[in-house]
């Protein structure tokens, strides 16, 4: 069956009343958590994981994907009206968008962000539907050695490329891998890091860890530095755009989409880099350079589109390879595993209803998001006025409730508090959260893949690089690890000034390889 037919079948899955309801719930929740300060999509999904144990996996994932997309929409509302971006991917939106809002053009800024997000999200989802099966077709032919190499690559790029400090990234990765070790060794059945505590022998529940790091750690961290002076939001009416705004917006939307999708799909692309690139591209191409820095609509349209297209891009390696590349994708992978679904290239074969239902629901969710965001923006903006004590007490309350409900044992709450404290300390000292979560999820899978590779080669070490893809990927890993040295040499020869292009070139190279 070809992609189009599969997609049509997906729509028949996604359009059942039950799944449609979960899509609606997802986009509503997503927009809300996007608007609300202090909560992001990753935390929201982590908090909901325990509540979805008894749900149909397809419905739950449709809801989670709605939260992911919705968070992107809601985040732009906050950046435009409040000028304090919650996520790094909306920093750029805040620059121009907030200037527009101050100049009385909040309605246009919100409109171009919402419509641009819709355009980018729809094109991005179409690209996902087109590319993911191709990646899968390629990936199913790979043996454990190649798959192992790809997972190692994913782990290292997330750690070494993103974040301000590589050292702190690796520290965080080490902690995540160590947490992933707790429990029984899958081959010999020996206890690792159990310390004679029987409750630990099943390993730490990934849901509890995610809730602790994302929700408890974050709530405690914000509580320690809670903003005393309330921030003023800019009042806003109905979002709308004039003819001139449309004319200036549509090209940036498309260019932003073209930048966002590939970056989202690479192991360490994320949403941050493409929004920055989109901004600088628009700044170069604009016919109104004088407006940049004072509220240029192109500077909102492009980055917002890039942001949303990257979300669709992120889902490509997640669904096709089982490789999460950002926090939200990591938590979604945890959700898959919670339902006992094995992520990886076989997902499309084993769970076609789920995968295509999910992809179809993204189209539906995107449309719903446009409908609920465009007319209701003023309503959403009122969420910003929620009393902070209730908001953060609520996060702690639901975190506790969820973590307890997993196994109904108070011991999980002790773990929740300990790891929450770890999450707090990591935020305080600039240890990135992402490598910990990715390490926790991928660590055990890397180990089992490694041992599988050896089993297939009957213990021969060459089993690790008996496939050309594995060799190529390892070379790439070596390149990334040696990158600081290369960059150092580069600066020796060409001092200063060249930093940005150099980084961009490196990323493009990676992009080329990661699409394989």
């Amino acid at each position, binding site marked *: 069956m070809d992609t189009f037919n599969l997609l049509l079948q997906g729509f028949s899955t996604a359009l059942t009343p039950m799944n449609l309801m979960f899509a609606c719930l997802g986009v509503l929740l997503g927009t809300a958590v996007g608007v609300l300060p202090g909560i992001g999509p990753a935390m929201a999904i982590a908090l909901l994981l325990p509540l979805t144990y008894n749900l149909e996996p397809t419905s739950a994932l449709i809801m989670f994907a709605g939260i992911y997309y919705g968070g992107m929409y809601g985040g732009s509302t906050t950046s435009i009206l409040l000028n304090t971006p919650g996520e790094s991917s909306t920093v750029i939106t805040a620059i121009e968008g907030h200037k527009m809002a101050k100049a009385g053009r909040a309605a246009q800024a919100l409109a171009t962000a919402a419509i641009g997000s819709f355009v980018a999200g729809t094109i991005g989802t179409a690209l996902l539907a087109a590319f993911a099966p191709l990646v899968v077709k390629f990936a199913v032919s790979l043996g454990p050695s190649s798959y192992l190499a790809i997972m190692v690559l994913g782990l290292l790029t997330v750690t070494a490329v993103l974040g*301000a400090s590589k050292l702190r990234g690796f520290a965080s990765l080490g902690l995540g891998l160590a947490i992933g070790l707790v429990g029984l060794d899958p081959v010999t059945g020996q206890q690792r890091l159990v310390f004679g505590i029987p409750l630990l022998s099943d390993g730490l529940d990934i849901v509890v860890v995610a809730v602790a790091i994302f929700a408890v750690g974050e709530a*405690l961290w914000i509580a320690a530095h809670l903003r005393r002076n309330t921030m003023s939001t800019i009042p806003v009416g109905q979002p709308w755009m004039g003819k001139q705004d449309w004319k200036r917006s549509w090209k940036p939307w498309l260019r932003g989409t073209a930048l966002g999708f590939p970056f989202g799909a690479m192991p360490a692309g994320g949403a941050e880099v493409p929004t920055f690139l989109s901004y600088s591209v628009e700044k170069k191409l604009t016919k109104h350079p004088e407006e940049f820095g004072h509220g240029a609509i192109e500077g909102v349209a492009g980055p917002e589109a890039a942001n949303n297209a990257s979300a669709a891009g992120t889902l490509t390696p997640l669904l096709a390879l089982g490789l999460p590349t950002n926090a939200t994708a990591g938590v979604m992978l945890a959700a898959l595993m919670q339902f006992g679904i094995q992520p990886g290239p076989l997902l499309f074969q084993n769970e076609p209803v789920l995968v295509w239902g999910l992809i179809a629901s993204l189209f539906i969710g995107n449309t719903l998001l446009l409908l609920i965001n465009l007319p209701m923006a003023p309503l959403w903006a009122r969420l910003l006025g929620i009393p902070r004590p*209730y908001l953060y007490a609520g996060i702690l*309350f639901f975190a506790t409730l969820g973590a307890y409900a997993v196994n109904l044992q108070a011991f999980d709450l002790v773990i929740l508090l300990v790891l929450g404290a770890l999450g707090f300390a990591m935020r305080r000292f600039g240890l990135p959260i992402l490598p910990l979560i990715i390490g926790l999820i991928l660590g055990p899978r890397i180990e089992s893949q490694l041992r599988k590779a050896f089993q297939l080669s009957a*213990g021969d070490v060459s089993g690790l690089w008996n496939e050309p893809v594995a060799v190529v990927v390892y070379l790439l890993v070596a390149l990334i690890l040696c990158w600081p040295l290369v960059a150092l040499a580069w600066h020796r020869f060409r001092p200063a000034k060249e930093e940005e292009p150099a980084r961009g070139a490196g990323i493009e190279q990676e992009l080329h390889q990661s699409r394989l």
Partner: protein
Amino acid sequence: MTQQATATGKPAAVKGRSELGIAALLGVAGAVVLWDASRLVVPYSVSDPVGPKTLPVIIGTLLLVTAVLLAVNVLRGGRGQAEEGEDVDLSHPADWKTVLPLAGAFVLNILLIDVAGWVISGTLLFWGSVWALGGRNYLRDGLVSLAMALLAFYGFYFGLGIKLPAGILAGIL
């Protein structure tokens, strides 16, 4: 968490070094992982030459190496960038008068949840958290807390089929 005690209002030189606590934490974690790995038995196996020990040793070593490098980095003046956010104001130091009561409410919930039941412990958790975060409308806060706990209790029971502990209110709820 040992480094947190030093985070309040000390001279910059001392305050900055509190990050050494993270290095210590990494070092201890690495040592524990390696110690734990050392007592694993590796059965001879042709098909599993990796064994249960390899990965723990790699991870423990990674933790120890990052611990040393981080300590060097901090002593040389390197600093981790504290995370920012919409409601985060980094211009004032960490406010322990908020965080400690929050942790207290959390611990109280752990102690009470199986004995007194979720409705009581959850109410106290929410109420205590709101108070710690600066809510001073005692009556409204209390009613909201009770409503949240009851809603969660019945929502989980009827909606998800999960029975949260009723505790001393068994029979009444």
